């Protein structure tokens, strides 16, 4: 099991007319031989609403 967080946004800007990505999502994922599968959460810093996230990644190379 691994945990990681997206700490910094390099590209993307969240705005009403220019939607993008905000940092701060935190994930807990199970590391398999070829897969990284897990769940995460992201909290809106303004409204404190929480979005639940899931990821399923496969080793490409």
């Amino acid at each position, binding site marked *: 099991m*691994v*945990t*990681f*967080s*997206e*700490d*910094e*946004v*390099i*590209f*993307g*800007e*969240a*705005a*009403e*007319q*220019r*939607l*993008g*990505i*905000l*940092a701060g*999502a935190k994930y807990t994922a199970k*590391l*398999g*031989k*070829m897969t*990284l599968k897990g769940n995460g959460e*992201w909290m*809106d810093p*303004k*409204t404190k*609403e929480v*979005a*639940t*996230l*899931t*990821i*399923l*990644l*496969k*080793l*490409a*190379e």
Partner: protein
Amino acid sequence: MQSVRQSVSEYARLGRGRGSLLDVVSPKGEEGEMMPQHSWLVAGIATCLLVTACASSPPKGRITLMTQISFTTEPYRGTFAVTKGAEVLGCERGSFVDTPAGTTIHKELTCESGERSGSFTAKFNPQDAAGPGDRNGPWSIVEAADDFSGLDGGGDFWVVFDEDGKTGVETLRGDIQFSSEAVKAAPAPTLARTPKAWLELRLVGSGPGPGLSEMRDLGPSQPVYARNIPVITNADIAHARATRYADAPAVALAFTKSGANTLCDVTSANIGKPMGVLVDGKLDNVATIRERLTCGPPGRALITGNFSHDEAKRIAATFPAEPADPLKINSVWQGTGRQSEPALSYPMILFVQQRWGDEFEGVTWYPTLGNGRPGGSRRAAW
């Protein structure tokens, strides 16, 4: 694109080198100094496997066996490890129970790891005679069963009590042999079997005292006073692999849950104090505890010492290897991410850039999101 930094746990290091948890303060000789002894052992086994007559000869030879004994409840019990001659005895470690028999003690030893299984009983006659321990005396085999049928032998032993007298360490040294009949019943030898190592970490005192044993493995004029009770033994190690650190052979260890917690407690209470690394009962090096090891699994440490890379491989081969780690530098992961509100699914790519032990740093890329493209909606204020 976002930066990702993951921290699973710290990768604390035992051993020399910059940033290490322990720094070696008493190196012994050059790298590979211990090699001749183990080369001889391996060569001896190889020769034995090549010579047909050797297979039919009853095993015999010198053994050294160390026990950890608790005196808190009767009958006294404990564990033992064969630090020398395990290939002769056909056993590497196990447990025992003591039974008083007049002025002697019968110790029934049960092998739990090794080529042979079963039990044998040794008679001890402890005396207050002069010797290396608090109690010293002779021992001899009086009964043997199962795979140990036909076992005979004996020698001398000494026991050193710990400070509080509740625990102690016994050392048995002597010669053993199996009868010819025992050879017929002996298990088939395992070809090309690598002798396992016995690894221990022990706190070291500043001078002689109760509960401490004087060790001169680092040199006759360099006595080290190691605690009799080890902090870590083989039983506390879950995985190991041979590696290199600061261009020196090293062994990366992953501890069991109890081993990690023990090492956490001991290192946090002894920062700045020395700890000895023992291989097969011999002191290999003494290092200084730099910092507390991360508590709980997966506790990890890297030990360096006065062993060669071959010796590091032998130590590592004693323990199960860790499962293959796919989180390698330059690895690319691709797949799908989903969010709950608003419900959205999007492609996601992770690229691993750096790796330090259990930490990694990389970037994630969402090709259909962000980057200022109108309509891309992920984690936007809604």
